[in-house]
């Protein structure tokens, strides 16, 4: 038994006939052919698979593809505009917010959700805000700096940022 779904992934309609048990993360990786959303635990405990579902961060290893039918998903691949990185991506790059990079897409998507809710977060807001995402490499300090860096950039109009570069 399969079900037809249409999921709008990074602005593109992705249609497939899927098993009802298919996890969203596997839909993104296998059906949509994207590699940025990682599987780190399959139990929603590590956050490596975090994506935005209609703008809100979810762990895509505990969402079924059929639950996302007709809805909009943003993955890490959908953040940059051409060569222009998203400020959160820039923040992670500039502050060395990643080492092995495996948790990074999930961290970035989780931070996206956090900064939507708290455009000007304190250190402890950030540490609490990303506590559903595990990183084994960085000790989190540079991730906190990366999110703050992004918050600064995002509170500055794009034109001013472009001028500053």
């Amino acid at each position, binding site marked *: 038994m399969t079900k037809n779904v249409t999921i709008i992934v990074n602005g593109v309609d992705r249609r497939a006939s899927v*098993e009802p*048990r*298919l996890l969203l993360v*596997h839909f993104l*990786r296998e059906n949509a052919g*994207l*590699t*940025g*959303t*990682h*599987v*780190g*635990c*399959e*139990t929603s*405990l*590590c956050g*490596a698979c975090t994506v935005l579902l209609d703008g809100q961060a979810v762990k895509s290893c505990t969402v079924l593809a059929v639950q996302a039918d007709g809805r909009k998903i943003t*993955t*890490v*691949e959908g*953040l*940059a505009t051409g060569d222009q*990185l998203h400020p959160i*991506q820039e923040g*992670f*790059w*500039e502050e*060395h917010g*990643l*080492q*092995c*990079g*495996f*948790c*990074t*897409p999930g961290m*970035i998507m989780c931070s996206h959700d956090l900064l939507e809710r708290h455009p000007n977060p304190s*250190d*402890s807001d*950030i*540490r*609490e805000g*990303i*506590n559903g*995402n*595990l*990183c*084994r*490499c*960085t*000790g*989190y*300090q*540079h*991730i*906190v700096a990366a999110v703050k860096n992004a918050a600064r950039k995002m509170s500055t109009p794009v034109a001013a940022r472009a001028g500053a570069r």
Partner: protein
Amino acid sequence: MATPAKSPVPRKKMNDKAGNGAWVGKRMKRKEDPRMIRGISHYTDDLKLAGMVHCAFARSPHAHAEIQAIRTDAAKALPRVIAVYTSADTTSLGPVPCAIQMPDLKIPRHPVLAEGRVRYVGEPVAVVVAEDFYTARDAAELVEVDYEPLPVVTDLEKALSKDSPLVHEQFKSNQAFTHQLKNGDVEAAFKKADRIVKQRMMNQRLAPIAMEPRAVVAEYLPGENRLTVWSSTQIPHLLKTQISLLVGLPETAVRVIAPEVGGGFGSKLNVYGEEGVVPWLAMKTGRPVKWNEGRRENFMATIHGRDALNDVELALKKDGTILGLRARVLADMGAYHQLLTPLIPQLTALMHAGCYKIPAIQIDIVGVFTNKMSTDAYRGAGRPEATFNVERIMELGAREMGMDPAEFRRKNFPLPKEFPYTTVTGLTYDSAKYQESLAKALKLSGYDSLRRRQKDGWKKGKYYGIGVSTYVEICAIGPSAATPAGGWESGTVRIEPTGKVTVLTGASPHGQGEETTFAQLVADQLGVDPQDVNVVHGDTLAVPYGIGTFGSRATAVGGTAIYMATQKLRTKLTTLAAHLLGSKPADISIGRGQLTAKGGKKIPFGELVLAAYTARNIPPGFEPALEATHFFEPSNFTFPFGCHVCSVEVDIETGEIKIEKYVAVDDCGNVINPLLVAGQIQGGIAQGLGQALWEEVIYNEDGQLVTGTLMDYAVPKAHFFPDFTLEHTVTPSPVNPMGVKGVGEAGTIASTPCIVNAVCDALSPLGVRHIEMPLKPERVWNAIQAARAVPAIAAAADVPPKKAAVRRRA
């Protein structure tokens, strides 16, 4: 074992030539990041090959059992299942290798799939190949196995008792090996000691938890006789050799690629049975095969770290001088040896001198088989265990002598002028200024005012503690004489005809950022931009044989190989430039983008490179093209060091610990990229604090893994930590021309005893002497209750530590 620390080549200042030195020492953003932050890099599980199928393993639910029958019919009958195999099919395959040789080491046969008996929970029993991943896992569940459970042993001491169940009956005991390291007159030291300080300490079992679980993809092309294996590994070349032995193909037919690797921490410094089975399946089925490990499998069947029971004794003179140290270590091997399992406790033995002058040391180690997953290298690999023993017993020594723990340490440091310093354990420490890092850390932490606040706090029922840990670690592993598989590293540098530079390194970075640091180092030596330097690693067909990334060796050994290769190229460049400019090689300087002769004649870098390739006008005997390879054999290890200080507050009603301040002063020699060094130290501290406070792999008495998910095993989260304050001192190593030491494990080694010292310090007036890790609130609370139950000690609740210690002894 270690030869005197002397570089084989003259040391040069790194930023030596005019126009050079632009990149080394800079906080350069990483070259590897753009692909990772866009989510377009490729880890093993991201690979898709035409016709690829998937496999899944059926694993033992028992810690020890006889396999009476395996029925695979139901699994085979599932649609889209291609094949199911058990050990009956894999007799030609394996065994899983152990690289360690010791006189009395017992090495049990370690089959890739269990043969007749299972010895730990998670041991693979059968493997299923199916068209898709979901079906493979479904079918693995359908493999039926009849088990006859056998008695289980998980406790180290019980395993050595006469009536213990045996993990391997043929050895007639669970003793895997014994190892003694003894030097100096230990008996005399303890005989003449004014005081002997003793403590038993359990260094608990940990799970490495790289965020990317293991994964393997294999493809076999019979026409070409070419087996290609992509694996999430730290050691692609060693793995290539071992896979050829596992599957029985000539090594020339095997290519291993380590694509993007999502962390290792030692867990991928190994050769696993799955890395033999998956290639074998590809050969057997004629289809590319993928296996990706689930997190639950990762907990059960990827190596664990630590797990050693330590009885440590320190012999002291009245004035606080150390006379000797003795330790008995029971080290849990698990059920089988993985690649380096029996080696890890030997590193522990070696590092028991710490950064102190200890004239007599005796370490006795017993390796023990139990019904658990194998232990092996986990970040620090033997050194954190040694440092924990040393730094805890130093702390207790200071307390018992009534001395300040910082002062007690300083008193026993070798002086800077005593380096290279040879320890009684036989190591030659290359260079250090322990006094300087200690002084800096004390100042930065405000140590004196922390002590004052502590005293005031005790009067008010507030329990502040200060922990100090001064450490030395053994890095840049290492001279080949001291390593099981060669301790050198390879580096090739090729200036392409267009002037771009390709670097091939035998190191295998998996998060450390050597695509950036090696580019920085090459850019300075050749006068090019690091963006024009492409560092290639992890592909055995592209890169000359190498050893890999572990033991904080990539930069100090692999980086030096590249540095040496650049020196060969500098000679070629100046020779050719001199020829073309009518000058002498010694009079040519390499600057940014051009070479200049004394007197001012110049040739652009690109033009010179092209001349080396067109080779129409080259001096006699000059080899065309611009490529150089160096295999660097280090003369010694390097010994980074430092001092960490932290302050905590303990809530004695709940046992909760608040980390208030954490200061780390580390010395890893010369620094190529300070941003990346900070990242290594911060991550290391977090992992070390993870062991001290939260992490613990627990098997129950039946050998069931109780902490088998991330819900049960507490990998630290962001809000567990404050910001760490980092500083450093710079003491270049004389062992390599760049003066670098390595920094991958420092944080993990120093931080664990630092915070345990702080917590025990906070609770010292209550009579708490030691708490076993992890210092979970429940344990801390119980330790407080137990100490309070002793009346003499309860009365000491508000006296300073010196008196409390005296009363406790009374």
